[in-house]
């Protein structure tokens, strides 16, 4: 049995994910402290013990550099302690996977800037039509459904993680955009 735990701190949310459950809490800051009690509660509620995990997925962003490194550092430490592999997944892809069809994902940052990317989602498959990039918020031309400042889906992060653990184990380099 494979069981992937996902952690994403690239957005103002702390997002935890398992294939069958997610927890998304809006925090702005303090991800680094809130992460541990939330993770403990999440595992307890879902009835999953750390020992059952077979892999860790971490969100590579894009997002606040320091913020997303918190989730990656946490994931690396957890994986080393549990003796299981870790892999990075793209945060905005996991946002798109909350929807179906063509989706434009926007995460606003400070001063009228944002991170944007376009995808086409079919079932659980996601195809990138425009990779994540930095843009002025008012200059993004959306295709399909537009989603702004939505957290990534925890389940989607875990599902993407499963694939990433096979394809790119150990690759957790943040997306510095």
């Amino acid at each position, binding site marked *: 049995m494979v069981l992937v735990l996902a952690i994403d701190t690239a957005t103002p949310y702390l997002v935890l994910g398992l294939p069958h459950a997610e927890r998304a809490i809006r925090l702005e800051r303090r991800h680094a402290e809130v992460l541990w009690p939330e993770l403990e509660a999440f595992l307890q509620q879902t009835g999953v013990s750390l020992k059952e995990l077979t892999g860790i997925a971490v969100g590579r962003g894009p997002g606040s550099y320091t913020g997303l490194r918190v989730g990656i550092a*946490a994931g690396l430490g957890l994986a080393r302690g549990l003796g299981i592999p870790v892999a990075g997944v793209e945060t905005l892809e996991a946002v798109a996977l909350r929807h179906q069809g063509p989706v434009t994902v926007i995460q606003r940052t400070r001063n009228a800037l944002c991170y944007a990317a376009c995808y086409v989602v079919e079932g659980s498959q996601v195809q990138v039509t425009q990779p994540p990039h930095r843009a002025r918020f008012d200059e993004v031309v959306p295709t399909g459904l537009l989603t702004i400042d939505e957290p990534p889906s925890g389940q989607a992060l875990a599902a993407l993680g499963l694939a990433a653990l096979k394809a790119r184990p150990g690759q957790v380099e943040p997306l510095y955009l």
Partner: protein
Amino acid sequence: MWILGIDTSCDDTGVGLVRDGAVVVNRVASQTLLHQRYGGVVPELASREHIQLIDGLVQQALDEAGLKAADLDLIAATRGPGLIGALLVGYTYGKGLAFALGRPFVPVHHLEGHIYAALAEHPEVEPPFLALIASGGHTHLFEVPAWGTYRLLGATLDDAAGEAFDKAARLLGLGYPGGPEIERLAGQGDPGKVPLAAPLQGQEGFAFSFSGLKTAVARALEKGYAPADIAARFQQVAVGHIVQVVTRAARHTGLSTVLVTGGVAQNTPLKAQLQAAGLRLMFPPRGLATDNGAMIALAAWRTHTRNLHNPMALPAAAYLPLDAG
């Protein structure tokens, strides 16, 4: 008991392993070259290096000791002070490791690490003692009445001691870091030839001050004194000032054991004069004198019985006084 220590407070990624108080592994990935061409540490670059290096370094450290992560009894990491983005990498990684292993996590003050590094080769020394930290960024004198307890006796009112050596060296046209350069040039000069007053004469406390000295060096240069004589006099006064404050603190507290850490501790006349003052001195061994992870594990070894309420909830902190906790 095996303790893993992590330090990512500035531009070095440090991971160390300590067994029952003895350093077994001390691995440091230095970023000095990376930052050199920017003329100083670039915080974002430092953080990027830390996140890339930390896990591999921990694995190498475990391999070197022939350990598995599950063999660790305690995980310690620097909480502060330092660059917040850099600190967060090692600190959060350490928490993750502790969480996964179900082992205690010990937040460590960076200066605590430097203090206990001086005892790495002196397991017989017990508190109370004095601890002098004199580096490029710090000049602090602490009284340590018990493991993990610190009372700040005095600190610099302006420049750090090492900073003063560096600034004086620059005025004298010497290279960086200035400490060793001044020490070398001072050996060729005559301190008696240059009038240069000692700082904070008549103070009752244990404060340090070095900025006046720097100004005096500039003035002496203008007056045409020979650089070697100025260097000799500068070193004599700076060292004399430190020795005076430390010996007065020793008399005041009745303590004669002094832990001396930080780059300035490498100054030969300083060592000699502190020794001549009848103090029992402890210096860190070579590899533990600069930032490293082993010293963080050493500090955890000395302080982990101090009961912290929920250390996992303690945030990393760029500014963090040592004597408050």
